[in-house]
């Protein structure tokens, strides 16, 4: 639903006239005039109030009994008293009552010093208790999950955690067991509470009942400093506060930003900070010497990298992962294009997209924001799994569906965790996204062969028509959340043309709250493209001068010997990209492989010539661009680990050695140069970006975006038909939220490391003659992946799914970015 209009009303609070938003809650209205009404159970983020704790009782004139301010909406002319004797008496009584079973073990409790119960008892409590009977006892502390410890004695039964689990993350795991005075928070049957967003309840808990296992007893609020930054582990780029003690990050807290993360964090973002302080981290330059990587001095490493790269000038490629900042990207593209005369650089793992299409997709009129998801009439999730690709968007979609009545449609190959919330969920063959958008385009326009196209997509034609009807009839605000995967492969251009056609048929450009929102593969995918890290575009999506090779072509050229050196910025192609065999050949053929990496991954151990240590995100300074165009600042919270140098300086040193003029002394100077080079960033300054970020689409300079020469609707060519699983199975892949070095080395998250599993539908499993947990071998052309079967009823028959980037038996042994049929047989 579109954003409701907000009407201001006036009411009287403690004898003062206050104007507040009509129907907002009294607690929030009181904040407008700095009146604090104490509250435990209410949090605006959790949705509808429940009035469980009774702490917020106030006197409303005309109502005989005291009312809970957290659940009383403000009306015109209301007269409210928060300081009468009756209110004070009730507040003292409620505090005394809540403390009846509270153990008051504040000196031991982790929450001590930042505990709302302490603060409210001190501020509004009576100071004494008449309760002398024994308190209730539980065994403590218990592990609610490997990440969260629960102390039920401290719990005041405010329901916040249960409401989070039931209504926000919708994992439905936490419940309140027993009744009345015996109630306690638990999971069904005592199962561990493992969910992608579980640790948000630690931050929500107003007492010390739920504490983080990783932060347990590490520090007190007065021992630490908070440092605002953003998380760079996925494209969602949640705003975070890093808790720092003695130059170590001890904890990550959410830094509420409605327009980015809504105040939540995923467990990866919350616990992967541990990866900064582990022994596995690379903290000194490594150089291959006698076949083995050995630590060397910075001078020697830089010298080797420079001589290797300059020797291969004109025959060097660069491949960039997602954690690179805009500034580093800008320097790297200058190094490649100007210093080394090599236009072969790319930040998209799946192949180039026509420059015109990049420009058409970046059109401000066509871009949706994160908030638009919440207030849209309908949301289409297309070829992505938000919980894996940008977890926090998953919560935003759930919020929209649950609280704002958004109609959700999911179109993906793999069963999605959002299926249960969706009005319509549609499956298509892996890699057939192009055919699906073409079919949808045909259904929306009413012309074209919908049946044939749906068959090419391996989708049900009725569902495609239903989807078209749903999107066109829901209302004008339609948001299409699509994954970069859709545009991967040699036919990526066609898929994006289809998508732009769909957007134009739905008139997404004309409605304010409608548009496309892409989830890129890399955390800073959008920023890297706009900073010029594309094979066919310079900074600001401008003409590149000379077009270079894209990622798959760089791999092929390396393997063929056309390129001899490669610069790997925050990525390990062997692990992260399709076609492991090709990249293994490519990197072993290359004479110089320069890498920036935080951790040693298989491809780097095997092939890297020089490895520069990467900065952890808490050490880094720079800017990131959110998928919706918001430029956000990454600010250093701790000093660099001993031996680690700022990466932009490393790049600048190499640039200088390659003969470029480098006049930068600080990151803001690089940012200035970037802003000068990207016309539509022209109005941005670091001051204005500040702590909340700024969307470039909202500045006047957005008009400087180069316009696409060709506009939708495009004439589409017929997509190739989906492969028929004739005895064999279509291979689909996915990348789990838990895949990645940060998770693998963080002690708290180790239990979540994804292992390869073969997802089969029960029908196929029966036909092959295997059951849940059996080992099978998935083969294609001699290559094989050997893993256990997981039966999922929702997997479409004829398809098998494998995980990418797992520690062993990864899916890219079998893939090359094009749809494939594989054989599955018992191992």
């Amino acid at each position, binding site marked *: 639903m579109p954003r409701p209009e907000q009407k201001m009303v006036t009411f009287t609070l403690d004898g003062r006239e206050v104007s507040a938003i009509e129907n907002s809650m009294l607690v929030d209205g009181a904040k407008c005039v700095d009146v604090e009404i104490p509250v435990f159970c209410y949090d605006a983020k959790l949705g509808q109030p429940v009035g469980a704790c009774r702490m917020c009782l106030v006197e409303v004139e005309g109502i005989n009994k005291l009312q809970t301010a957290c659940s009383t909406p403000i009306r015109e002319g209301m007269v409210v008293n928060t300081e009468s004797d009756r209110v004070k008496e009730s507040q003292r009584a409620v505090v005394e009552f809540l403390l009846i079973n509270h153990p008051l073990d504040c*000196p031991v409790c982790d929450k001590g010093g930042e505990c709302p119960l302490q603060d409210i008892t001190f501020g509004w409590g009576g100071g004494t208790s008449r309760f002398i009977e024994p308190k209730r006892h539980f065994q403590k502390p218990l592990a609610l999950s490997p990440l969260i410890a629960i102390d039920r004695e401290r719990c005041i039964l405010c329901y916040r955690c249960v409401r989070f689990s039931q209504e926000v993350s919708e994992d439905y795991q936490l419940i309140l067991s027993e009744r009345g005075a015996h109630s306690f928070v638990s999971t069904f049957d005592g199962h561990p509470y493992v969910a992608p967003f579980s640790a948000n309840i630690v931050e929500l808990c107003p007492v010390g009942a739920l504490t983080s296992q990783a932060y347990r*007893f590490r520090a*007190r609020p007065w*021992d630490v400093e908070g440092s605002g930054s953003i998380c760079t582990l996925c494209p969602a780029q949640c705003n975070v506060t890093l808790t720092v003690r003695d130059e170590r990050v001890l904890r990550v807290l959410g830094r509420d930003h409605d327009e980015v993360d809504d105040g939540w964090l995923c467990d990866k973002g919350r616990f992967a900070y541990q990866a900064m302080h582990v022994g596995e981290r690379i903290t000194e330059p490594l150089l291959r010497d006698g076949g083995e990587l050995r630590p060397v001095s910075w001078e020697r490493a830089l010298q080797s990298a420079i001589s290797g790269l300059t020797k291969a000038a004109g025959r060097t490629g660069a491949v960039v992962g997602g954690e690179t900042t805009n500034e580093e990207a800008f320097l790297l593209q200058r190094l490649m294009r100007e210093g080394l005369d090599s236009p072969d650089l790319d930040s998209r793992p799946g192949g180039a997209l026509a420059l015109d299409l990049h420009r058409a997709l970046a059109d401000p009129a066509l871009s949706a924001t994160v908030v638009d998801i919440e207030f849209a009439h309908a949301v289409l999730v297309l070829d992505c799994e938000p919980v894996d690709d940008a977890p926090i968007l998953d919560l935003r979609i759930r919020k929209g569906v649950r609280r704002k009545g958004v109609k959700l449609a999911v179109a993906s190959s793999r069963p999605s965790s959002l299926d249960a919330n969706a009005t319509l969920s549609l499956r298509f063959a892996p890699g057939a996204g192009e055919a699906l958008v073409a079919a949808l385009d045909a259904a929306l326009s009413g012309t074209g062969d919908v049946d044939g196209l749906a068959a090419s997509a391996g989708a049900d034609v009725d569902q495609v028509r239903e989807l078209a009807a749903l999107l066109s009839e829901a209302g004008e605000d339609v948001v299409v959340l699509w994954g970069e995967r859709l545009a991967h492969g040699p036919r990526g251009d066609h898929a994006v043309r289809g998508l732009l056609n769909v957007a134009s048929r739905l008139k997404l450009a004309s409605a304010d709250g409608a548009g496309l929102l892409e989830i890129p593969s890399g955390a800073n995918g959008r920023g890297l493209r706009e900073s010029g890290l594309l094979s066919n575009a310079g900074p600001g999506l401008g003409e590149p001068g000379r077009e270079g090779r894209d990622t798959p072509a760089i791999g092929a050229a390396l393997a063929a010997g056309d390129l001899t050196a490669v610069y790997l910025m925050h990525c390990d192609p062997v692990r992260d990209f399709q076609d492991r065999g090709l990249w293994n050949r490519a990197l072993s053929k290359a004479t110089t492989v320069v890498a920036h990496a935080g951790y040693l991954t298989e491809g780097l151990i095997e092939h890297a010539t020089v490895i520069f240590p990467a900065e952890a995100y808490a050490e880094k300074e720079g800017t990131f661009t959110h998928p919706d165009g918001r430029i956000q600042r990454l600010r250093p919270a701790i000093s660099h680990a001993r031996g680690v140098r700022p990466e932009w300086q490393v790049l600048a040193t190499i640039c200088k050695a390659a003969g470029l003029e480098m006049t930068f002394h600080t990151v803001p100077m690089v940012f200035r140069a970037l802003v000068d080079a990207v016309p539509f960033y022209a109005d941005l300054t670091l001051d204005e970006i500040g702590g909340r970020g700024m969307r470039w689409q909202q500045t006047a300079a957005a008009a400087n975006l180069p316009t696409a020469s060709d506009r939708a609707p495009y004439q589409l060519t017929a997509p190739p038909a989906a492969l028929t699983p004739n005895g064999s199975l279509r291979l689909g892949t996915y990348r789990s939220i838990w895949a990645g070095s940060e998770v693998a080395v963080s002690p708290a998250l180790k239990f979540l490391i994804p292992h390869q599993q073969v997802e089969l539908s029960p029908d196929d499993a029966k036909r092959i003659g295997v059951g849940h947990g059996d080992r099978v071998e998935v083969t294609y052309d001699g290559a094989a992946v050997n893993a256990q079967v997981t039966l999922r009823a929702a997997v479409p028959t004829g398809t098998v799914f494998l995980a990418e980037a797992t520690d062993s038996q990864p899916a890219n042994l079998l893939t090359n970015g094009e749809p494939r049929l594989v054989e599955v047989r018992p191992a």
Partner: protein
Amino acid sequence: MTPWNPGEDVIAVQRGPEPGGAGGAYRSFGETLRGLKTTFARVIEGTNTIQYPEEKVPVYPRFRGRHKLHRFEDTGLEKCVGCSLCAAACPSDCIRVVASENDPENRVSAGERYAAVYEINLSRCIFCGYCEIACPFDAITMGHDYEMSDYNRSDLIFTKEMLLAEPIDRTPLRNEGE
């Protein structure tokens, strides 16, 4: 024109007598002699010098000397649970506490948590005793020892083991009525 009359504003300057003569001699030495009277009066009392460090002045029971950490007498467990309240109360920021979780098999303190690191930088401490007041478990108290000089600043950072150890009894305590 009448001359200006200063009226009440006139300040009369009092001048001393002219120097010289008997009066002048008295004024030069008289006050010195008056001071010396006190000095000579003390001479008959005998010496009051205390031969420190061979002799020491006993301290009062509430004297705030070097801190001590305590253990429970019965169980031998440390009283300190590592809550850091002393560090919060400390005005000169000289206490550092790093807490850790108790291993139920091998307890250090009575609760869930204990101080893995407890350091007081005595070169910074101003012996105000706020840490003692802040402590909810009476785990830290101010002792009587005031002899803490050292040759090295870093040796003045007292660790938990040093603070827990029974101090060498080198400061006499004043008895009641003494």
